[in-house]
């Protein structure tokens, strides 16, 4: 077990190191550097000033040195400076973290609450009308762009209630009710899509588990359907579902990017889009790296959780 954890940690480290190289190279491919952007907004370019600034920022150095320097700063928790806000990047990101986190947790909650029961019911009623209806509904969820779903929901609200949802962010500490109300719809829009994936995996593993001998025994003992399905079967069917929830986390962040934009929520994901659009590349580089760290950690946690939840799996020799 210890060997396994160690191995997983090494792999995660290698992945993140590779990721950092990939991001760094990609950002160097992007046309122009930060000085172009700064001078562009000033309207004139003084070559001497520009070289001075380049030296100040360290981008006149050879690329490998720049890379090592960036990595060192990142590891020490220095996320650089936002040129747009003229603030340390961390000061811009910090107030945005709770927004994204709240949205992600809500979306994940909705996706599990909708996806798992739908998957179980669909498996139990396999081949019936209800099964077809639930499958079509979940596939529809996978097919709709989450930003469009968000727009339609806002539109319906405005049309039917003549009511315009608040488009400025309300902190939960100021007004919890208004905050939850504001996050409910974007959370549902992102969660619906993820619930479709969870529903599908729940359905297929439930179908497998329901064929097992011990389930037949439970039926033979005369246990009620609710007991057999929700206690005995779901327990063993939940492992792949947990793995998927870990993977889902990565997809969620993708969904948040467009959803935060549509619902005008000042989260981290939206900041990434903003930074890309104004070519604030040092910030993009650090934010993407930060996302990669979160995703890799989420997957690692799920993997380790897996061995803990299912003692039958022995990874020591793997």
């Amino acid at each position, binding site marked *: 077990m210890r060997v396994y954890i160690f191995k997983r940690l090494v*792999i995660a480290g290698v992945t993140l190191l590779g990721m950092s190289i990939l991001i760094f190279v990609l950002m160097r491919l992007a046309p122009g550097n930060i000085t172009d952007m700064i001078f562009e907004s000033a309207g004139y370019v003084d070559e001497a000033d520009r070289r001075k600034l380049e030296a100040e920022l360290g981008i006149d150095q050879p690329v490998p040195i720049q890379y090592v320097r960036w990595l060192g700063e990142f590891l020490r928790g220095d996320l650089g400076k936002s040129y747009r806000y003229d603030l340390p990047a961390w000061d811009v990101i910090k107030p945005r973290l709770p927004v994204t986190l709240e949205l992600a947790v809500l979306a994940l909650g909705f996706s599990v609450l909708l996806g798992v029961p739908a998957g179980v019911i669909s498996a139990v009623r396999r081949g019936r009308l209800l099964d077809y209806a639930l499958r079509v509904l979940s596939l529809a969820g996978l097919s709709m762009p989450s930003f*469009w779903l968000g727009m339609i929901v806002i539109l319906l609200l405005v049309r039917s209630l003549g009511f315009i949802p608040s488009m400025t962010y309300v902190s939960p500490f100021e007004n919890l009710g208004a905050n939850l109300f504001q996050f409910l719809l974007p959370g549902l829009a992102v969660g619906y899509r993820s619930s479709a994936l969870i529903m599908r995996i729940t359905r297929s593993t439930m179908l497998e588990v329901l064929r097992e001998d011990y389930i037949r025994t439970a039926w033979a003992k005369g246990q009620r359907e609710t007991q057999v399905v929700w206690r005995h079967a779901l327990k063993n069917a939940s492992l792949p579902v947990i793995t998927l929830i870990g993977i889902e986390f990565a997809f969620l962040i993708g969904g948040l990017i467009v959803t935060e934009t549509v619902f005008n929520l000042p989260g981290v994901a939206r900041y990434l889009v903003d930074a890309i659009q104004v070519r604030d590349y040092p910030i993009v580089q650090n934010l993407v790296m930060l996302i990669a760290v979160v995703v890799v950690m989420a997957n690692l946690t799920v993997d380790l959780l897996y061995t803990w939840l299912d003692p039958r799996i022995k990874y020591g020799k793997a």
Partner: protein
Amino acid sequence: MAIRTLDVPIRDTLAEARGWGGALWLFVKKNPLGAAGGLLMLLLILAAVLAEVLATHNPIRTSNRVLVAPGAEFWLGTDNLGRDLWSRVVYGSRISLLVGVASTLLGAVTGGLVGLVSGYVGGKTDLLAQRLMDIMQALPILVLALVMAAALGPSLTNTIIAISVVIAPRAARVVRASVLAIREFIYIEAAHALGGGHGRVAFRHILPNTFGPFVVLVTAQLGGAILAEAALSFLGLGVPEPFPSWGRMLSIAAAEYATKAPWLVIYPGLAISLAVFGTNLLGDALRDTLDPRLRGS
């Protein structure tokens, strides 16, 4: 090893199917949902091919008749620049289909080749290729596509490349997994014994047998690719103007004029959803047919 009876219903696919027509009818009968998906895909392809015929106006010519509600002249209304929405949605199918198919194929073929080589050669090559794929999958699809698109600059070709980069590692995984299984079959040993070189064995004997899972993957990723294009274009980092992209249509006009002209929001999004819904339905049915191990999952 005990001989297991095949629980795959061979009779269905061989005896009953007489020619292409029979096979098609059987598919429709067995998979009504898949057939519906196929129909949606067919409509999408028809719209793309016959865009000139179906469009009633020039999709990129602006006019002073802005935000006209849907009616006899403008079937789906006009946008804030006076362009006919119906014609734009029809032409938009070309962009969606082109970016979707091109990026999926580019990604699937490159990834597939990596998977074939890494699965066949094994050892250090395999380890290196796998780590590389791990790295590329460590980011959410949209984030990687976003960064790629930002680095390359917004254009039609770059959008295709950015999305294909996201698809490649998935294809590599799928092909590698089936190569690893096929490699152990006795007929591969026979092919080697008969003097078949590595290239011949890999491409003639192994590659054709990875086709089933490969097709399943391609259809499954196609919907994702169309969605990715829509999201990238929506954020202004995908297909640039004047191409009528569904995602782009939703970004500029829709947000601003949503309450005054809801058709600007409804129809392009509906087009995206139906196209992706079609590929997903068809993908599911194809998976059930071509890869029975995954049936119903």
